[in-house]
């Protein structure tokens, strides 16, 4: 079974989803990520979905679950690179990905994660900790 590689950059775990995701691979990613967060003490998780041509309810739920798990493990999750057509479809589908933070690309996602961790440490009311709130 293929597994999606998880890279560690600083105290952030980076996942780039390259393939057309099979459900089982998505489930293993969820498990792998929780283990790696604990193992590495990472403070942030960045999931790059630039290559994903669709996000359906299953993948959407996986992203939400990953965000919830990392929150419990004291890490922030940012999903980056969602394509316009995917975003429009998700809204129509009724999926709002509550609790997931998003950024346009990996660079902005990393910047957001570092802002978030500084905010956690110093000032509780620091800049845009945006979450995609729908409906």
């Amino acid at each position, binding site marked *: 079974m293929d597994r999606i590689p998880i890279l560690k950059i600083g105290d952030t775990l980076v996942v780039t989803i390259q393939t057309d995701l099979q459900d089982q691979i998505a489930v293993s990613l969820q498990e792998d990520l929780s283990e790696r967060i604990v193992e590495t003490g990472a403070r942030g998780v960045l999931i790059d979905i630039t290559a994903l041509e669709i996000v359906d309810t299953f993948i959407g739920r996986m992203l939400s679950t990953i965000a919830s798990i990392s929150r419990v493990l004291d890490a922030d999750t940012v999903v980056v690179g969602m394509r*316009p057509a995917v975003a429009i479809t998700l*809204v129509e589908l009724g999926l709002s990905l509550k609790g997931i933070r*998003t950024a*346009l690309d990996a660079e902005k996602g990393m*910047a957001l994660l570092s802002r978030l961790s500084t905010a956690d440490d110093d000032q509780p009311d620091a800049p845009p900790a945006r979450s995609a709130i*729908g409906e």
Partner: protein
Amino acid sequence: MSDQDARALVAQLRDRRDQTVAAWAKAVAASLGGRASASELTTEFEPLFDAVLDGADSGRDSSGGDFDQARALLAEMSRSRAREGYSPTETAISIFSLKDAILAEVDTADAGALTSFLALSRVIDALGLFTFETYAEARNRIISEQGVELMELSTPVVKLWNGVVGVPLVGTLDSARTQVVTEKLLQALVDTGSEYAIIDITGVPAVDTQVAQHLLKTIVAARLMGAECIVSGIRPQIAQTIVALGIEFGDIVTKASLADALSLVISRSGGAPASRGVV
């Protein structure tokens, strides 16, 4: 009518090709009121004339393959007529006048020749209808192309500042147009790497539940991609409608003017947006 008579007529017309085409072109030129010269028309009609005769030579079924060449030429002609703004009548006359030009060549006392002419005339009628259909098709295509063009023109997405795009909306928003706006706006976010978008609705005469719904969806989609939208230019009447309709704008930031929205975005994105190409 015998095939022999038909072939005789075709042969006769071939002999008199130049005169017949000239008479045809002259009649059409007169009907077009000088927008095309007889010599231009002659150049256009010569291959068409040959194609019609070729078709008539090999068969008389205007719907069969024998007139393919003639139909191709006619299709091209009626499409260009449609683009150049000729009326349907003017376009149809171009082919129907051929009958008069041919009739002038026919010896009306000869029953055989007359029957052949009638057969050929039916073929030309069918070709005329075909011309008209192609013309209408071309017109429809032009109209829909213009519709798309107008939609694109009426929904520009402009870069207002580093990391800020703006969409000034003018005119009535329907669902097709809002879809174009959404797609263009979201693509612009990706292309320019902008984290903020300002949707200015100063020029929108009315906002109903559906339009508001579309705007909300656009804003949620932008958030999913990691960008924030601000709606500006909400006029007093529109604010009243929004409240009266019970439309919930939730946590979406609204500002009275584009300038207010821009200054909010600039202050949010760290005060020095000019130096903020890459965060």
